[in-house]
């Protein structure tokens, strides 16, 4: 191999391995985030999946909001969807500080446990729970991932000749390298698409120059340019609003039946009150939610946005490609499986790297750290996710700041896994994968004994069983190495 090839290989091996410590967790969390509402439903077993017709949902929400939100100028209603049961209502003075409830089919609020639900995985995936600095870190990691993909293509000499080659019965190094190459090549289009679009979504964080120059540094500037707002000042005179179901029916005449996902009431109770309806994005690639605004008192159409400027389409198409709200369950499963395959591809690469060092009998402190972090980033993150789901059912429902304890369980399990891996070295892989596999197999038991068990939650349980079975099957590749 010439000097350039060696440099590519060095970049790929070291860059890929070091950054995989966060890339694998980001890929695992991102795959789970595809099913954010479904995981959220699993984590709130109080909610029933009984279907509620949109117009009835609007009635129930309206009645509840008149009870509790009479003084609040801002109301939000999230209508039930095939992915999110119950009617979500929220009210308050500021968009970011709303009180939220979920209503059951009888219109009463469901007493809910405090949880971040599936949104935790989205948050961890996009910013590692660190806000803006987390977006910086994830953005940098994404750029390294792009470099690792490109360098990987360069150093893979037999990319076409070995396109379908997988030799699990060859020696262990060959088998892991085959797995790394095979999954990498097979998912290459997905990896490029997801990494590039992910970096693009974050680009405004680490390349703010355009926003600074064009909008005088106002962070909401680009959004205000893209989204038409139909707002007006309060009149100060009270007036009765038309029933929400009439606004919903008017919005459905524009968007089509069943296409409205949410209703927002501004200046509730005022003569200038407004009702805004948002259209679903689940049937289009670009994640742009058309919206329409009515006069809440008279029902007159005040404005609508059914088309967007080309830049908005271009940007939101990349967002849509990344978050995969389009295309229904089939597309979600393809993204979920592809994301986990990406994580498995990186894990296999890490194993090739670590094995090479082990074969040189390199047992110094550096090797110990590399081995420990590698294991914790793959097997440890699975244990952390399972600890998060498990703690959701095992912590008492009334525990103060319960949602924070669930997140604490995630990180505690991750730190424990890292400590264990640093202490035990290579055998920790097998032990942790066995534990993760069995815990995943036991998840349905936990679900059924702690109040879950409806069809939606059983679907998640079944997925956990399949994943657990695959993990247990994979442990046989981690027996004490002979070759």
């Amino acid at each position, binding site marked *: 191999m010439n000097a350039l090839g060696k440099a590519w290989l060095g970049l790929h091996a070291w860059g890929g391995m070091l950054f995989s410590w966060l890339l694998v967790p980001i890929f695992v969390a991102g795959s789970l985030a595809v099913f954010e509402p479904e995981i959220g439903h699993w984590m709130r077993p109080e909610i029933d999946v009984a279907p509620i017709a949109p117009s009835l949902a609007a009635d129930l929400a309206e009645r509840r909001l008149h009870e509790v939100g009479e003084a609040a100028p801002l109301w939000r209603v999230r209508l039930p969807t095939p992915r999110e049961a119950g009617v979500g209502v929220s009210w308050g003075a500021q968009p970011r500080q709303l009180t939220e409830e979920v209503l059951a089919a009888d219109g009463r609020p469901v007493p809910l446990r405090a949880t971040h639900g599936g949104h935790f995985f989205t948050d961890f995936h996009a910013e590692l729970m660190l806000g803006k600095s987390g977006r910086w870190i994830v953005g940098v990691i994404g750029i390294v991932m792009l470099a690792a993909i490109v360098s990987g293509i360069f150093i893979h000499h037999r990319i076409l*000749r070995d*396109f*379908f*080659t*997988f*030799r*699990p*019965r*060859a020696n262990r190094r060959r088998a892991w390298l085959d797995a790394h190459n*095979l*999954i990498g*090549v*097979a*998912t290459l*289009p*997905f990896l490029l*698409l997801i990494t590039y679009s992910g970096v693009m979504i974050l680009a405004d964080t680490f390349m703010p120059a355009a926003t600074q120059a064009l909008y005088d540094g106002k962070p909401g500037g680009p959004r205000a340019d893209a989204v038409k707002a139909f707002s007006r000042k309060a009149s100060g005179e009270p007036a009765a609003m038309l029933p929400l179901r009439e606004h919903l029916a008017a919005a459905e005449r524009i968007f089509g039946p069943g296409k409205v996902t949410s209703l927002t009431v501004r200046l509730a109770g005022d003569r200038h009150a407004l009702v805004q309806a948002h259209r679903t994005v689940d049937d*289009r*690639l670009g994640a742009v939610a058309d919206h329409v605004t009515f006069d809440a008192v008279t029902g007159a159409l005040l404005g609508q946005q059914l088309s967007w400027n080309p830049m908005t389409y271009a940007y939101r198409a990349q967002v849509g*490609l990344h978050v995969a709200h*389009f*295309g*229904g369950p*089939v*597309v979600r499963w*393809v*993204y979920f*499986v*592809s994301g986990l*395959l990406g994580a498995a591809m990186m894990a296999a690469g890490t194993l090739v790297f670590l094995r090479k060092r082990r074969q040189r009998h390199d047992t110094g402190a550096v090797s110990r750290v590399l081995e420990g972090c590698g294991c914790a980033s793959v097997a440890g993150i699975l244990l952390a996710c399972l600890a998060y789901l498990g703690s959701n059912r095992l912590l008492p429902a009334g525990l103060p700041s319960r949602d924070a304890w669930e997140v604490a369980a995630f990180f505690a399990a991750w730190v424990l896994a890292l400590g264990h891996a640093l202490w035990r070295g290579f055998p920790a892989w097998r032990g942790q994968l066995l534990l993760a596999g069995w815990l995943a197999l036991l998840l349905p038991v936990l679900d059924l004994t702690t109040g879950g068990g409806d069809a939606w939650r059983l679907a998640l349980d079944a997925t956990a069983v399949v994943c657990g079975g695959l993990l247990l099957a994979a442990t046989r590749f981690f027996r004490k190495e002979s070759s």
Partner: protein
Amino acid sequence: MNALYATLAFLLIVAGMAALAIGMAQHHRQVFGRPPGVVQRAAWRGAGWLLLALALAPCWLGWGASMGSVLWVGLLAGGVLVVAGALAAGPKAG
């Protein structure tokens, strides 16, 4: 209906990837015990590409051109892995 389209697309993709694999000397030997002739090789490869292209049809019918194309690209990965797994599980896998 969409589940049906997705199944059809995936089957076409697996078939297409299998044909492309058989169009390669080492896998042809693995499956038939001898390397392919020039015509055979071209035929297998042509059939493979054709089947992959055909799989676009159910994707577009079910999801439209833009979403359907993304889905098609996503399903390609599954096709490669299924064919590679089948070849690895076969009798003459190395």
